[in-house]
């Protein structure tokens, strides 16, 4: 029967070509949207690796002030740490968690290079955002006298650079210039939130006199309210006249960050939803028309011994064969994405998207074909044979 269906489709290939293109295009769109969804969902289920509850980000801008900026920042940090409402505080580069800022560098170890997100932080960073150590330790004041700059790397970077080697104590080079020594490793650090992939990352210790990294993360005690925020801002403004002070909560920044991912995904979903609805309605219409035109054939097949079920099966089979042909072409295109490592996304994401797209297309064509096929099978053979 399958061969018979293939013959029927093949002999009507001209008439079916547009339908095949339509299903192929739907498959490709679905594959794209599903890849995006699977990518984001698979990121989402992975933990971000740190705590953001009760953490505030104080963004300080020195504006025109160029006098002893590093010292002033250090004094502000000490003042913040002295508040009873503050559990911990840490200076950080502007690429704070959930911010839009990004810094990355190419890191080399024994001719193996990797692109890693680069964060400048101080000794209290891991404590402030509860970033647990995997191996080794977080850098501390004693590392300042070391020959190499101390860094902490995440597991992803460790896997890329060191494979199974123990990274602790290893010296690596950044941008072929500066040398760093790995003092510890952490598991994950998804600074852009749950939807971010677990990128390679490295944390470098901020020097005492550093004047560039002017963000301060504050871990406040539970129940700390806006009164403290007002007091904090007022105190800093008194200490640093003319500086810009902006306080944001990481919980809020996280929500904004999520929106940046969810809004485009939702737009894609709506567009592809419309497209698939159109395709489904088109298929439904085409099948209805095709069945109306093939009433004689239906009557003939019933006369030749086809049961109602076999007639339904034939029409469903035809659309499945068409969908299969379309998706074989679609798979030839889509399989290039994992093969060519497009967008540096894991192959499993593309493969999952392909499988899901195949299932959804089959479900759609089955749903669209089911009703007309069932109607076709219920046509009385004597009536069908006499309709022109």
């Amino acid at each position, binding site marked *: *029967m399958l*061969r*018979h269906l293939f*013959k*029927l489709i093949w*002999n*009507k290939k001209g008439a079916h070509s547009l339908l095949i293109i339509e299903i192929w295009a739907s498959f490709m769109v679905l594959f794209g949207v599903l890849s995006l969804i699977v990518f984001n969902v698979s990121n989402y289920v992975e933990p971000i690796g740190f705590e953001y509850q009760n953490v505030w980000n104080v963004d300080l801008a020195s504006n025109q002030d160029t006098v002893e900026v590093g010292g002033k920042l250090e004094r502000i940090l000490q003042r913040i740490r002295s508040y009873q409402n503050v559990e911990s505080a840490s200076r950080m580069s502007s690429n704070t968690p959930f911010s839009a800022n990004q810094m990355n560098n190419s890191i080399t170890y024994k001719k193996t290079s990797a692109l890693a997100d680069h964060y400048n932080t101080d000794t209290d960073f891991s404590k402030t955002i509860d970033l647990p150590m995997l191996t080794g330790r977080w850098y501390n004041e004693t590392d300042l006298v070391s020959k190499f700059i101390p860094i902490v790397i995440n597991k992803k970077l460790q896997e890329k650079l060191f494979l199974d080697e123990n990274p602790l104590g290893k010296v690596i080079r950044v941008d072929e210039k500066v040398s760093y020594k790995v003092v510890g490793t952490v598991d994950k650090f998804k600074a852009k939130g749950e939807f971010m992939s677990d990128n390679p990352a490295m944390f470098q210790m901020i020097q005492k006199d550093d004047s560039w990294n002017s963000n301060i993360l504050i871990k406040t005690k539970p129940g700390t309210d806006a009164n403290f925020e007002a007091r904090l801002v007022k105190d800093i403004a008194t200490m640093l006249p003319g500086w810009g002070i902006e306080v944001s909560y990481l919980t809020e920044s996280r929500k904004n960050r999520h929106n940046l991912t969810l809004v485009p995904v939702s737009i894609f979903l709506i567009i592809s939803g419309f497209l698939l609805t159109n395709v489904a309605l088109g298929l439904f219409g085409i099948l209805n028309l095709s069945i109306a035109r093939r009433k*004689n*054939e239906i*009557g*003939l*097949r*019933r*006369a*030749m*011994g*086809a*049961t*109602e079920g*076999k007639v339904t099966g034939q029409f469903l089979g035809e659309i499945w064969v068409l969908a299969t042909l379309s998706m074989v072409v679609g798979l030839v295109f889509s399989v290039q994405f994992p093969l060519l490592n497009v967008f540096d996304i894991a192959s499993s994401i593309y493969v999952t998207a392909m499988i899901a797209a195949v299932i959804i297309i089959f479900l759609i064509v089955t749903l669209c074909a089911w009703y007309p096929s069932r109607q076709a099978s219920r046509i*009385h*053979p*004597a009536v069908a*044979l*006499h309709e022109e």
Partner: protein
Amino acid sequence: MIKLQNVEKVYRTSSIETLALNNINLDVKKGEFVSIMGPSGCGKSTLLNIIGLLDAPSKGIIEIDGRKVERFNDKEIAPLRNKMLGFIFQSFHLINDLSVIDNVEIPLLYRSTNAKQRRELAEEALEKVGLANRMKHFPKQLSGGQKQRVAIARAIVGKPEIILADEPTGNLDSAMGNEIINILQSLNEDGATIVMVTHDDAMAKRTHRLIRLFDGTQVL
């Protein structure tokens, strides 16, 4: 082989009731070649559809090869149609998108015959109707007579005991019509029971028995 007792067929709409067949009693013996004649609209095709289990009677008993079938459901009727009955239609009802041999194979698709056997049986049937050289052609490439011969090959490919022909020569000229009747006669001589609806007296005279219908009633 075919027995109809008090068969009645009424077509009903919301406002009209039409009596298409009235108290038909018929007994066609195995190996008989019977023709049904009558004016247009007298119920010939309805009668043939009822014999061919394509339509159900409103009343009466139908026996095919000793089996009372009027209460059979779709799953019981379909194999009976497939194995016992072969149909030939005035307008051939060939599927234009399939080649001649694929058209002939259709009845065998609905029974457990493998592809090789199907091909062999279809070739054999086409040889029987003299179309062995047209197997790969498509219906649109054939003349009316050739199309009807393909339809006959399709009707006999499953070796049914009964062949039902609904005006098989209706769309053909007299020479082609004669050719088709010759083939039907030869099938009958090989043992097939044939019931044929026709308008043509000359064709009817070549059958064993003639049944005449008028306004749904059997008059002869």
